[in-house]
């Protein structure tokens, strides 16, 4: 019975979203106050119904209701209850429902916090959001319903894919979706502004905090995914330029550009049409990314179209939402004019170049991600694009971007007064270069051409971001949250650059073949396999190794890598053994049984790798701090 309640709730949510879209958009266009007044109740109904549907699916998983096909396919009675809940978004149907719920939750938050906005404008924002959730509810109900029954019921479920049985991955999709969907709010604000034909600095002030929070969620989501890939996939890498990763990274890059462009629009009333376009693009890439990933189209065109109705539905939805917004843009954007001018070395210029470089980087990733798909669709054969393309093409715009940021932080609005800040700029640069040279000379082995450049840029940017706020703080001057958040985020970008440089330059890795008691050499490190024994988990049994790692004869780490065999899915998983230290990770993963008691062991020592994710979290933290700035609270409070 309970699955049917979820199904009905979802149908009611669909109807509520229809009402929300209709009364919001048409009511505002015709100036019907009573229609506009129905929008907020419709949002509330939609929120309650979607929450009910999601709750029902969670209950079905927790109670092991294997008469529901989706539960039977993605859970098992031996699965721990936490993962049973995470299994809700373990596959296509449930992910869509989670996506829709997060969208409705954001909509609900916008409805609650937008009471001070002009009624017509708020109605249009909520109307656009209603249209998007209408599409998602319809897609879920008509092509991907998670509430369908299995008759006869399965005696037990097929279990959650063991790859997904991991805390970081349980949290990764909700974070990622919160980011994706958050850009829907910026998108809706942009569409509403275009519909009204009015876009001013207050518009940018309303949009900014929503966008920054969405960006922070997306940053954390991507970092969690990367962290998971690092220790769960057992390859020891943290970024693979995989289409699925790219799909989340493109909206992040464009979203980062949007945050900066919104700053210019808010402070100076410039870049209006550009900001609109970025708001549309950020969400379009999120939508495209979700669908490409969920439908598997990027892995292979074939699985996308394996269900042609699903494929056509997706395409029609993309055409309506993205195509509609871009048409609106082509019609309305020419009407927006910015009068104010600025000097070449003013902050506006730096942010303009920031935008160009970020969009170029996103474009390069987009081209590499879509190339196999395009080549396949045009019948040009299969094509695979890897690191050899992505690494250089991505670094080309982003290295200058780092230098630009290090200088641009010191610039001021409108007037090019960089000359006055010459001392701070040069001093930080000199310190950055000196420290980089010392680092590289101190650990020369394995350094590459980009190693000193990466260190110097990272340190320079970090110092540049911090020098001003620290100076103000020392002199007892006030610091706004906006300034503090910005400093943290930019310093984090510097830290990110430093740690990526260290990882890429100084990682030691080797595949060893070890029997118990044997030792293998990895650079200056020694790996000794001390023990190998069978252990048992809740829904798997495993072989667990005990590896001691020595550096120059001194014991520096003890690792417990596992090779798990999950019973139900009959899948063998590698659980890497990682010793996290302050300045490095010592890593080992068990590979294959090579016979005669020997096992292949992937051994890696990676310096500073944890700072890559720490930096991503700090960036997100900076965004959140900036969002709590007083001027946004004053705006929403009165």
């Amino acid at each position, binding site marked *: 019975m309970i699955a049917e309640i979820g199904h009905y709730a979802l149908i009611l949510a669909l109807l509520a979203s229809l009402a929300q879209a209709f009364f919001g958009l048409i009511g505002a266009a015709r100036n019907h106050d009573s229609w506009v007044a129905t929008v907020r109740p419709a949002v509330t109904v939609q929120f309650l119904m979607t929450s009910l549907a999601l709750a029902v699916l969670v209950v079905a998983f927790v109670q092991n209701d294997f008469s529901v096909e989706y539960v039977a396919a993605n859970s098992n009675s031996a699965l721990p209850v936490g993962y049973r809940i995470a299994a809700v978004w373990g596959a296509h149907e449930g992910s869509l429902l989670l996506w829709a719920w997060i969208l409705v939750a954001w909509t609900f938050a916008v409805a609650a916090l937008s009471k001070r906005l002009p009624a017509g404008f708020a109605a249009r924002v909520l109307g656009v959001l209603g249209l998007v959730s209408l599409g998602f509810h319809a897609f879920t109900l008509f092509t991907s319903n998670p509430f369908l029954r*299995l008759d006869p019921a*399965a005696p037990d479920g*097929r279990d959650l894919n063991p790859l997904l049985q991991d805390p970081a991955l349980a949290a990764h999709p909700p974070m990622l979706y919160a980011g994706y969907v958050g850009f829907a709010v910026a998108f809706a604000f942009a569409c509403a502004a275009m519909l009204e034909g009015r876009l001013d600095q207050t518009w940018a002030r309303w949009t900014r905090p929503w966008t920054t929070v969405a960006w922070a969620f997306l940053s954390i989501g991507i970092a969690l995914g990367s962290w998971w890939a690092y220790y769960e996939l057992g390859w020891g890498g943290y970024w693979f330029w995989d289409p699925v990763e790219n799909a989340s990274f493109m909206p992040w890059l464009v979203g980062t550009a949007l945050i900066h462009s919104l700053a210019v629009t808010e402070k100076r009333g410039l870049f209006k049409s550009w900001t609109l376009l970025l708001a549309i693009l950020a969400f*379009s890439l999120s939508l495209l990314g979700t669908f490409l990933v969920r439908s598997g189209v990027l892995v292979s065109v*074939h699985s*996308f179209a394996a269900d042609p109705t699903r494929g056509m539905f997706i395409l029609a939805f993309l055409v309506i939402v993205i*195509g509609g917004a871009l048409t609106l843009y*082509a019609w309305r954007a*020419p009407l927006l004019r910015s009068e104010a001018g600025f000097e070449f070395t003013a902050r506006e210029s730096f942010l303009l170049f920031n935008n160009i470089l970020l969009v170029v980087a996103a474009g390069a990733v987009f081209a590499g991600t879509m190339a196999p798909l395009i080549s396949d669709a045009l019948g040009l054969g299969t094509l695979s694009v890897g690191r050899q393309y992505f690494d250089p093409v991505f670094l080309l715009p982003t290295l200058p971007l780092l230098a630009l940021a290090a200088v641009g932080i010191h610039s001021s609005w409108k007037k090019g007064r960089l000359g006055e800040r010459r001392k701070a700029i040069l001093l930080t640069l000199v310190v950055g270069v000196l420290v980089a040279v010392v680092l590289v000379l101190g650990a020369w082995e394995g350094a590459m051409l980009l190693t000193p450049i990466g260190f110097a840029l990272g340190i320079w940017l970090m110092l540049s971001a911090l020098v001003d706020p620290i100076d103000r703080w020392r002199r007892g001057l006030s610091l706004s949250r906006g300034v503090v958040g910005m400093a943290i985020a930019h310093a984090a970008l510097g830290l990110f650059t430093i740690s990526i440089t260290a990882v890429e330059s100084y990682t030691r890795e080797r595949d060893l073949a070890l029997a118990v008691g044997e030792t293998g050499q990895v650079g200056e490190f020694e790996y000794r396999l001390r023990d190998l024994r069978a252990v048992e988990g809740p829904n798997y049994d495993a072989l667990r190794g005990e590896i001691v790692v020595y550096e120059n004869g001194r014991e520096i780490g003890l690792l417990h890598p596992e090779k798990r065999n999950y019973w139900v899915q009959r899948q063998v998983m590698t659980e890497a053994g990682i010793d996290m230290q302050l300045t490095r990770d010592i890593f080992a993963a068990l590979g294959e049984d090579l016979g005669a008691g020997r096992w292949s062991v992937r051994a890696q020592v990676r310096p500073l790798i944890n700072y890559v994710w720490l930096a991503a979290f700090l960036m997100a933290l900076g965004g959140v701090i900036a969002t709590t700035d007083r001027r946004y609270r004053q705006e929403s409070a009165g």
Partner: protein
Amino acid sequence: MTRFLLPAGVFALLVAVLFIGIQRAPEKTVIPSALIGKSAPAFTLPVLGSDQQFYADSLRGRWYVLNVWGTWCPECRNEHDTLLEIARSRALPVVGLNWKDDDSAALDWLEQLGNPYDVVAVDREGRVAIDWGVYGAPETFLVDATGTVVYRHVGPLNLQIWSREFLGRLPRASAGGGL
């Protein structure tokens, strides 16, 4: 003001590519198998419920179907009625590959639901399934008289797929079931 139309134009191109991708797709198999056009991997496995061994080579000279299944797989249960129907038609010999399963559970299953297989080979370790590149159960392969894999279907069969993709590939003379 054409520059404001540019994003919409680029998007239209993208839509065209995606549209072509969807249109072209039904001509292709869902998950292309590296095995198609190559000879079927040889194997020797115990026969379910007996002491005999089954040699895949013994089928050389005949077209046959290899169906991968397990009692732990709900989709296999969905597929079972179709398989019984196919077995009744006696169009082709159907070899079952019981994948990573429990022998007694498999025998119970066949007793309760009916046995569509001419013979069931037991792949307890899943090694043969790896040779065949099995993606997930149920999965069905069509092998021709020279021992070449002609077609592969991932997921449960239905009669429509059976007649279009399997029977449609047979030369007229080779139909006729049973081992």
